[in-house]
């Protein structure tokens, strides 16, 4: 019983955290077929901006988080205008933007390293204390992470389903030509999606760093996991990505419990490869998928 509570607690925390950064990636891929390899650097940027806002500027957490979201959102916009937009018409857009964002991610990561130093730092936004269920301690920070993640997912769902911007994003993702014929300015949709994705990356980065600390290259592994979740769900499938993220978090918690932390990623990946050999277009295929 205690083991189950323990696994549920850490699995849901992990999964919810993954979901937030994965949704952003899925939105961006769904709208403009862009794999944003600078997402990991955006996660780190969000974490460090929050740190800076709270320590150097002395802002309370409720303000530091929106500041980090704004900074990462603007960075996302810059990535769109400087890198993606000039290449949109290219036949090899997918390959080119992938390579370009690898480069931009390296730039951003090294700028962070030069600004804040290469040594690990603790994320100041961190709740103390824990709730005890049976003999299991569930840290309040985990509960906060889960709550914030759910809040973010609900907000994204509301945005997509109930706003004019959300309708434009969904239409663009489902059929780019048709969206333009409806009068949607898809360039603006692309920019919005990258800004949203950046803001979500900030939240995700703050949450990740509150558990494992801040490092300039902290975003690498979470980004890879987020991408793997996208791949399993079928690239561009936002709701699928959220579901797979939660499942992946639980699975990872189980694997960590059974095999130990150090091999969890390797085993997770083997499972993913098995899934992809079984279903090459992701778990939900592409045809029958319920996307945005």
């Amino acid at each position, binding site marked *: 019983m205690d083991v189950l509570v323990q696994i549920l607690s850490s699995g849901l925390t992990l999964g919810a955290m993954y979901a937030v950064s994965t949704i952003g990636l899925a939105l961006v*891929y769904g709208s403009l*077929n862009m794999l944003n390899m600078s997402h990991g650097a955006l996660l780190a940027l969000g974490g460090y901006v929050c740190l800076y806002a709270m320590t150097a500027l002395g802002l309370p957490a409720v303000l530091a988080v929106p500041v980090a979201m704004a900074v990462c959102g603007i960075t996302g916009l810059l990535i769109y205008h400087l890198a993606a937009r000039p290449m949109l018409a290219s036949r090899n857009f997918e390959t080119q933007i*992938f390579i*370009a964002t690898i480069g931009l991610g390296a730039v951003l*990561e090294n700028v962070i390293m030069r600004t804040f130093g290469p040594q690990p730092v603790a994320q100041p936004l961190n709740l103390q204390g824990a709730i005890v269920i049976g003999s299991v301690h569930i840290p309040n920070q985990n509960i906060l992470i889960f709550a914030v993640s759910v809040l973010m997912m609900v907000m994204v769902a509301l945005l997509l389903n109930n706003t004019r911007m959300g309708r434009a994003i969904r239409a663009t993702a489902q059929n780019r030509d048709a969206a333009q014929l409806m009068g949607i300015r898809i360039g603006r949709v692309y920019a919005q999606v990258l800004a949203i994705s950046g803001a979500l990356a900030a939240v995700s980065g703050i949450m990740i760093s509150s558990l494992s600390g801040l490092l300039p290259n902290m975003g690498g592994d979470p980004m890879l996991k987020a991408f793997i979740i996208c791949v399993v769900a079928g690239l561009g499938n936002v709701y699928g990505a959220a579901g797979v993220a939660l499942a992946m978090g639980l699975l990872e918690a189980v694997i960590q419990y059974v095999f130990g932390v150090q091999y969890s990623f390797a085993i997770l*990946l083997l499972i993913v490869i098995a899934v992809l050999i079984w279903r090459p277009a992701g778990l939900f295929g592409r045809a029958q998928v319920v996307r945005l």
Partner: protein
Amino acid sequence: MSARTRDILIALALAGLLALVPLFIGTRYIITQMTLFFIWAMVVSQWNLVLGVAGIFSLAQMALFAVGAYATAMLGYYFGIPILLAMPVAGFVTVVVSALIGLACLRLRGPYVALLTLAIAQVIYLVVVNDTECFTNPPSGCMPLFGGVRGFSRFGDLGFRGLLGSKWYIGHYYVGLFLAVLAVVFSIAIIRGPLGLAFQALRDNPGYATSRGISRFKYQLWVFSLSAFFTGLAGAFYAAQFGVVGPIVFSIAMLLFLLSMIVVGGMGTVWGPLLGAAILMLADEGMREFGDWRDIGLGLILALFVILLPRGLMGLMTASHSGLNRQPPKASK
């Protein structure tokens, strides 16, 4: 003269010129850097086959390089096998690993391949550095099976120290030159041979090519596996050259450096990646004083070239271009 003969002759002529270099330049630093250039030339000439010719967006190339390097080091360290023998064995080990990765990934679409190969590379890295269990306990301390974070050293060398004494590095220079020529000639044979033609057909007219029995998966698997031999061999020679193999070969900075060579030179061309390797090594030399800025500069170069000059420097020079960035007119509808 066919393009293939021409390119092979150019390669041999260049090799002849490079063979004369140690007779005139005695500086150990320059010779060692040129040896390193040969290693990178091997890697990028093969990665270019995968990326630019076969259109496989693989990011596992540095992991394959690492497999070659680690296999050599481990054969030497654990079994005392002479390095010269261990190197080709490491090449074959790399081919096997590559074929397995290819079987798992190549049926998937482009972006899936990129993500999965990157993830596989990362997993290999994590297995190496997270393994802390002692496999053996030499006097120098605990040694995990894959060397852990410290990696391997003292696994033997090519034996030039006995032969040439303090000039041993000149022996390495010629071995590197020889291997690089083999790799480059192999890449020319692929690009200008039947496999290259098959990929050209698949790019220009996928429907027709498929109906003629050209299977993308089969050809991709061939290129992916065969090119791994020289990639692994490059890793093996890297191990022999430096006498140390550690997890640094997995670093993102190294992947960025080599990927930039291909992009700057021109993906899919015969000479672009080699030109890119030379230019980036020189630029790196120039940036040495600005140590911290190196990775920022590299990242910028990579991004700027893809955005502004996606066909690389070779794209500037040649009009006829058979690579990934070719833009044939779309069929009318």
